[in-house]
């Protein structure tokens, strides 16, 4: 007879690496990669650049959680035709999708408010920002590293622990290194690989 929940045999309430509906890191899972919080109202465009899945959205939402401000995300297609919100601190996700004219208008308003705009973007927006008189700071999210992945995976496994149970699942540095190699710079792909890894541990019981 199969166990009702095979993950319980490892002391877990399920696979620790299931996808969450909300974007960003869950409480207690934020990995501090040494990036400072942005100043508010500083006539600044702070660009967070990185590949897809590198953690731009997570970083923006973490900052918003710490210091407040408005967050908005730009979808592809017609939905991107709206003026970005400007506030003393505002977070624009997928900012490279903003039409150039609307971007220039919003950045001009940021100069006069004054505001700090934190933009998650795949493209460099500094040209437009400098033209309207904003300072620009660009942060490239660090590549996925073995130590960071190990820390994050350990947090996720601990969060899935059943009450009063010992967890029998741990990621070795060698396994983490393999996953980092497969995932490239994408945390999202790393999470998928970790989910498969955890499922395989269960199936081998």
């Amino acid at each position, binding site marked *: 007879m199969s166990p009702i929940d095979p993950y319980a045999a490892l002391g877990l309430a399920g696979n620790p690496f299931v996808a969450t509906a909300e974007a960003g890191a869950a409480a207690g899972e934020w990995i501090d990669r040494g990036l400072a919080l942005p100043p508010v109202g500083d006539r600044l465009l702070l660009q967070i650049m990185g590949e897809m899945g590198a953690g731009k959205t997570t970083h923006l939402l973490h900052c918003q959680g710490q210091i407040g401000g408005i967050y908005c995300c730009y*979808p592809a297609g017609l939905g991107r035709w709206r003026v970005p919100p400007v506030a003393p601190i505002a977070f624009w*996700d997928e900012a490279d999708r903003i039409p150039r004219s609307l971007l220039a208008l919003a950045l001009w308003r940021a100069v006069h408010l004054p505001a700090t705009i934190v933009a998650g973007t795949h493209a460099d927006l500094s040209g437009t920002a400098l033209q309207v008189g904003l300072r620009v700071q660009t942060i490239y999210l660090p590549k996925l590293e073995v130590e960071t992945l190990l820390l994050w995976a350990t947090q996720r496994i601990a969060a899935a622990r059943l009450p009063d149970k010992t967890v029998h699942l741990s990621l070795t540095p060698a396994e983490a290194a393999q996953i980092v190699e*497969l995932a490239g710079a994408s945390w999202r792909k790393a999470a998928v690989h970790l989910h498969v890894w955890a499922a395989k541990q269960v199936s081998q019981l």
Partner: protein
Amino acid sequence: MVQPQPQSVAYRQIPKLEQPQRIAEGFLLTDLEQVWSWRKSIYRSLFVVIWNIIAFVYLVSGVRNVATDRGAIITIVISGLLALGGLMMLAKLIIQILLASRFFPGELVVSRFPLRLGEASQVRYRRRLRRGQTQKPAQISAQLVCYEWIRCQQGTDVQAFTQKIWEQALPVQAVPVGISKLEYEGQIQIPRQGTPSFEANDNCICWELQVAVDLPGLLIDASTFRLRVVPEVVA
């Protein structure tokens, strides 16, 4: 079986699970992706042509202005990438049109549908030439695969992943010269411990028979047929 790593798929559309047609020989499935549709072809062609026109116009403009405007380098790079993508789409479209002009859609006849766990079934693949006969010997190979497909919205993106969980490779068969219909016969076996088909909006367990035709002078053509496996184990 050594399990492969999960594959990120570009928002893959899994083949529709069609209801087969009951015929004297069994159950007939058609590869719907290969069914010629004038409307779909016209839309695709228009899209590819417009894409290429825009990309090449910007590329040419960038090249013309690069001596006087250093920013034109960015235009050249971006439009160059778009033009490359456009050429790849155009090549794929031409191949699709060539294949559709040479062949009727691939068909699969299975002796049983839906299938049950632990069940064996004869399968016969056929693909007729629209005219003429094969000029060179060819090969047909097939494999039965079972895979998980998931789709998720994370951050601001929607991504899909697949993970193969089981496969059965069928023997390769030769196709002689001078025939007007490519045919392949084999037997598939659904494992007793296998997983039945499952379909939800963002999560699927799919069974597919993938047939590849290697015709000299033509790129390898593949037909995919989704099979349904019900949650029943044969005695």
